[in-house]
């Protein structure tokens, strides 16, 4: 069953407390981020219903929001999500090559996950790092000025982290 831990509930309460009495729905976006982070990097229907219950709103209000914003994953994703920007400024700096190289290395195309469940590749639209292109988002942070060598290093780093955490 989906349930926030005590610590996560404290964070939930902090998020809700930012808004006036009765406007707790305003916390929906941050709470969905918290839920996604807490429950395996994606939002299941059960999770969405749980968030609706916590915020005392209708489930459909949560579904509408969760499907609108591109950062919420409504299907399971790999442990490491490579979100490669492909908009104009990144494109002219070679983002297509980065996507192709990731395919060469990991055998995954945009939208796909490696068989071991470690990596998911996603192409995204402008992330606001145009001066540091090509780039991708990995977790909370950006990886910028990407080259094939850097992609190699990132994949290596992820594999090491995954091994260490197992």
């Amino acid at each position, binding site marked *: 069953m989906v349930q926030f831990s005590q610590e996560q509930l404290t964070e939930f309460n902090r998020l809700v407390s930012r808004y006036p009495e009765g406007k707790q729905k305003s916390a929906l976006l941050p709470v969905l981020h918290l839920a996604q982070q807490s429950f395996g990097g994606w939002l299941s229907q059960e999770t969405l219903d749980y968030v609706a219950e916590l915020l005392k709103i209708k489930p*459909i209000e949560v579904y509408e929001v969760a499907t609108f914003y591109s950062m919420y994953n409504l299907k399971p994703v790999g442990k490491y999500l490579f979100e490669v920007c492909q908009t104009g400024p990144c494109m002219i700096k070679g983002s297509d090559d980065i996507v192709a190289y990731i395919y060469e290395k990991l055998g995954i195309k945009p939208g796909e996950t490696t068989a071991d469940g470690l990596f998911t590749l996603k192409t995204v639209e402008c992330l606001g790092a145009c001066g540091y292109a090509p780039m991708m988002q990995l977790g909370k942070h950006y990886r910028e000025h990407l080259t094939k060598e850097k992609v190699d290093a990132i994949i290596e780093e992820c594999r090491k982290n995954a091994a260490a955490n197992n």
Partner: protein
Amino acid sequence: MSEQPLFKVTIDNITIEVPAGTTILNAARKIGGEVAPPAMCYYSKLEGSGGKCRTCLVEVSKGSEKDPRPMPKLVASCRTTVMDGMEVKNITSEKVIDARNGVVEFLLINHPLDCPVCDQAGECHLQDLSYNHGKEGTRFEFQKRVFKKHDLGPYIQLHMTRCILCYRCVFTADQLTGKREHGVLDRGDHAEIATFIEKSLENEFIGNVIDVCPVGALTDKTFRFKNRVWFLKPMDAHRDCPTCSGKVTLWNRGDEVYRVTARKDQWGEVEDWICNTCRFEKKNTSDWVIEGPRLIDRHSVIAQGHYAGSVGMHKPTETFEAVHNGRKPKLLMDIHSVSNVNRPEITLSKLDRPAHSSDFKPNQD
């Protein structure tokens, strides 16, 4: 009640006075006829509706008496209130007609155009709109958008490909049922009406989403493929309903009730919301007290005179010629000029046998 000041507004050269706070669209509806802009998403009985479809765009050529500057862009007449001395151009503005043609084209590029198998055909606002503003042929050369099918239960049939995302059904569920279970999911050109989880919509008033839907996206499952609306005879009827007003329109063929809808006014808007029991469960003439034939006064296929006389067709005010200095509306084509079948001089009823192609041969002499 406090006195509402009256504002003078001129729409397509016709001036009327309306209370402050009236929208351009409602002012134009007061004048009536073609001066009233088409509205695919606005619904006067649904709070918050309007502004989205952009079919009702008009040109404000004079802002007001105080500030006569024209508005820089076309505005959505359903969401813009009149000012005193405002001058508006609707069908007299080339810009408006051009933009409206564009909007209609946008609404149609991904529309399946499956009118021949659509239950809404004949009373579809998109059909009317395309008839008035659409062009022959399409410039869209790509595959049309498709959606995954969703089942909304035993009463309501959803055809997402026909949807124009007017949001009326969302407002209806919010404002009538208080317990909305469907909504607009996803975004952009993939936004869709859905429940997210397969769910049947069963609230006692949810059937009204069928009546507010301007297209064939939400239709009555109990009437599905049963008949074409123009073959049916609309009759006003009522019953003593514990849930709703019980005032409905029955759509009959002979004595058989094919479907039950709310009564709609000349703008196609529901007069009284009705409950699911009245709509879906009461399909016997004996369930109802028949009041008499329903006047249908919209420019659509069902109003094309099939039951003129017996039912009586109430024609809307014609303003086109008045505002265009006597110019007649342009027809897409004059049927008499292209088809011998419709040549008025041939009186088919005088033949004592079925008509044959030789009967239509032009005179040889």
